[in-house]
């Protein structure tokens, strides 16, 4: 049985016919050609597939495309404004928050969600705790944490002018 689904992906209206079993990540990668979202495991643990659905970070390998019908989906491709990187992307670049890059799209989407939920006020312990759903096989996490901290501090500075970033 095919189901017709429609959703906005990175701000654009998209429509597709999918099987009941089609995963959201499969729809994004194979039908919409958005291959920035990765698949790193079969067990819903690695987080390489993290995208935002209606503003919340989810594992797109563990959600059916049909479940996202009517939703707004944001993937790594939708984060930058033209050639201007999102502050989290810029921070990963600046602080070398990646090695092979496989986990990076999921890390960045998780980081953006984390920063939003904490209104950009993050400390190292919180960042490490919040990254429980994202696995990196290369970096040892150190520069990922540094990148997220830098992005959060930068965004906090924009949101809370005059705030001196102090550990909470």
């Amino acid at each position, binding site marked *: *049985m095919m*189901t017709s689904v429609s959703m906005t992906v990175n701000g654009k209206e998209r429509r597709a016919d999918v*099987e*009941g*079993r089609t*995963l959201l990540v499969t729809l994004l990668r194979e039908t919409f050609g958005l291959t920035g979202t990765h698949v790193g495991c*079969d*067990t*819903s*643990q690695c*987080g390489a597939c*993290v995208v935002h659905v209606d503003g*919340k*970070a*989810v*594992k797109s*390998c*563990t*959600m*059916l495309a*049909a*479940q996202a*019908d009517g939703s707004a989906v944001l993937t790594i491709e939708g984060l930058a404004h033209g050639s201007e990187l999102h502050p989290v992307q810029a921070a990963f670049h600046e602080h070398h928050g990646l090695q092979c890059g496989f986990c990076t799209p999921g890390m960045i989407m*998780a980081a953006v*969600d*984390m920063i939003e*939920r904490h209104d950009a006020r993050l400390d190292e312990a919180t960042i490490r705790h*919040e990254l*429980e*759903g*994202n696995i990196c096989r290369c970096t040892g996490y150190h520069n990922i944490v540094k990148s997220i901290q830098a992005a959060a501090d930068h965004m906090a500075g924009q949101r809370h002018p005059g705030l001196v970033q102090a550990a909470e």
Partner: protein
Amino acid sequence: MYETNYHRPRDLDEAKSLFAAAAEGRYLSGGMTLLPTMKQRLAAPSDLVDLARLVELKGIVVTADTVTIGAAVTHAEVATSAEIRAVFPALAALAGQIGDPHVRHRGTIGGSLANDDPAADYPAAVLALDATIVTTQRTLEAADFFQGLFTTALEDGEILVSVAFPIPAKAAYAKFPNPASRYAMAGVFVAILEDGSVRVGVTGAGQDGVYRDATFEVALTADFQPSALDAIVVDPANMLADLHGSAEYRANLVKVMAKRAVAAAGSS
């Protein structure tokens, strides 16, 4: 994953009839357990009936003595609910320890209870407080709802609608998570009820799934201190053993987590 037909009913009645009409139907809530199981081809329902958006299963209602949570309320919603945090912070804290942020955005309390994984977190609180479980057919007490590993009183087609927790005077949950899966290797929920009695629910460790520890309860009702548990030896014979930990290890872990929960509840 094998092929399956996806349905999104408008209300509970339509959900039940879609389920009844299916060759081998399964309800789908957050999908955080069912979809990984289907991906591994360990489950192959002919039809999935999606409950996640049903308004009848949504909502958190807090009264003077009860917190009622709809089956399709996500772990993240419970963890961040200002109302729950005000009257029953231990429950919000428990929900905030389930899996990881992405899992909490999708996974639901109804799905967790219906699944009854022996290492799931919610059952410890639900059983300890003998919460009331409302389904499309009846009202059940937690003690009758859980029936061993991955087994509940739910009948074919019956939908879990909501869970009502009596608000305890004090409570805390202490969990030792498996570092890879985040599920509990031992999780102990401790509560002092309004009448002064103490309840202890243990998950992750027992061979028959979640259980209440009567020995702990008696000792803690007499003296609500971590040291009240010092002399008690948890019997490894009733503990799960797997590659993550032996029965002896879990027996010790249950006591350690119970003491941590008592310490946390006492200072709350």
